[in-house]
């Protein structure tokens, strides 16, 4: 019976693993593994014996996939990492997401430049998925500040949702063979057309198994005061879909900013979601006072959660994969900062506490009960 809470923390200087009993009173930290090399994605694959994966994105020697079969006590490189075919002309820059596939050893990886790869043998070999990687739009996508990344992969039966920055939301309804841009209602503030067919800077997409037609999106907001061609674009940053991602509507009203990176769904209620609003220009906590905001009604209204967080002089950023929630009876929220702090929000974010204060800049936090 699962009785340990395992956090994987991808940082600028390798991956750390933190482990605790289900009480989560204190976590033991180990690592860094893949020391000195940025890790942008991690996965605790709990299908069968827990296996931890981490993308080790080495700017000197290229991409590696690290794998641990001993609860994150040691990691080894898999036999290969995703790579474009030699005649493709593109070269891998980063691995932004690793998700479980359908079969037991199947993995899906979203990479930069935005493309999708699959492995059927636990990461030892990889093949490119042409339906999106060679999509007619693929050579027209352009990089955001983080690079041209495929950061979100959501599988829902034959539906596959992909988040690309900047490319937008792409939807497959045939198991990932073919994809269509599906961005009706998803705004973009950095081009004259406020609602283009594709090219939006989607930051993260989330869903809940109990409400498969429902999706939540943190999009690149902060365009309420835009005075250029096309006019202001208020509230385009936090969105919801109720038709499997075919169309989207704003749920940003009530937030102090519609800019942010992560969006997280509560494990026991599809109506409860979390965002971390940031100043759009600086991408830091508004007024230097970090707060998580929670909605318990699918985005109709929002509540500020800041108990235990600094009240001033805190100007960190929380990146797109750096907030998550466990699925215990009383879930805890976790987020990591670009200043290397790892926070736990006990009781669903009611009371925050800093678990680790001085890690390297945090890219990614995942949690599993194993």
């Amino acid at each position, binding site marked *: 019976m699962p009785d340990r809470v395992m956090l994987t923390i991808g940082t600028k200087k390798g991956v750390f693993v933190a482990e605790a009993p289900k009480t989560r009173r204190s976590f033991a930290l180990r690592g860094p593994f893949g020391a*000195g090399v940025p890790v942008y994605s991690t996965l605790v694959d709990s299908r069968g014996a827990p296996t931890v994966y981490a993308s080790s994105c080495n*700017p*000197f*020697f*290229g991409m590696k996939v690290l794998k641990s079969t001993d609860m994150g006590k040691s990691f080894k490189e898999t036999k290969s990492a995703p*790579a*474009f*075919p*030699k005649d*493709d*002309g*593109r*070269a*891998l820059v980063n691995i932004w997401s690793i998700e479980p596939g359908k079969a037991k050893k199947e993995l899906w990886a979203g990479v930069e430049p935005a493309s999708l790869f699959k492995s059927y043998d636990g990461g030892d070999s990889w093949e490119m998925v042409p339906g999106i990687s060679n999509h007619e739009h693929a050579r027209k996508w352009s990089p955001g500040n983080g690079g041209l990344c495929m950061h979100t992969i959501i599988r829902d039966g034959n539906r596959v949702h992909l988040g690309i920055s900047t490319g937008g939301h792409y939807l497959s309804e045939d198991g990932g063979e073919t994809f269509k841009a599906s961005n009706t209602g998803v705004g973009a503030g950095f081009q004259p057309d406020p609602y283009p067919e594709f090219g939006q800077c989607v930051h993260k997409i989330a869903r809940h198994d109990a409400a498969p037609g429902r999706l939540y999106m943190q999009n690149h907001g902060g365009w309420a005061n835009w005075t250029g061609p096309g006019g202001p674009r208020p509230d385009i940053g936090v969105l919801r879909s109720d038709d499997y991602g075919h169309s989207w509507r704003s749920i940003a009203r009530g937030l102090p900013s519609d800019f942010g990176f992560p969006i997280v769904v509560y494990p026991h209620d599809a109506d409860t979601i979390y965002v971390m609003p940031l100043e759009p220009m600086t991408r830091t906590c508004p007024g230097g006072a970090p707060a998580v905001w929670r909605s318990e009604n699918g985005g109709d209204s929002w509540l500020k959660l800041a108990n235990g967080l600094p009240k001033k002089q805190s100007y960190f950023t929380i990146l797109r994969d750096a907030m998550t929630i466990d699925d215990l009876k009383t879930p805890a929220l976790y987020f990591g900062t670009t200043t290397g702090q790892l926070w736990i929000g006990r009781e669903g974010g009611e009371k925050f506490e800093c678990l680790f204060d001085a890690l390297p800049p945090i890219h990614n936090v995942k949690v599993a009960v194993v």
Partner: protein
Amino acid sequence: MSADTVQAVLDDLERTRPTLYRNVCDETGAVRRHLNVFVNADNVRDLDGLGTALQPGDVITIVPAVSGG
């Protein structure tokens, strides 16, 4: 190793030591951005790049650049 150019050395590396080669060159065949290739004491960037001709006894050194933070 017998090779006429630096490129021929890399081609041989790709055939004989593919895992090592992938650490040196990306999928397009380009030397990775933060690596420098020297022929004796000279960076090939200051010679004829990967087309730099080799003479018997030349020593090729592949060194990571000093970068990061």
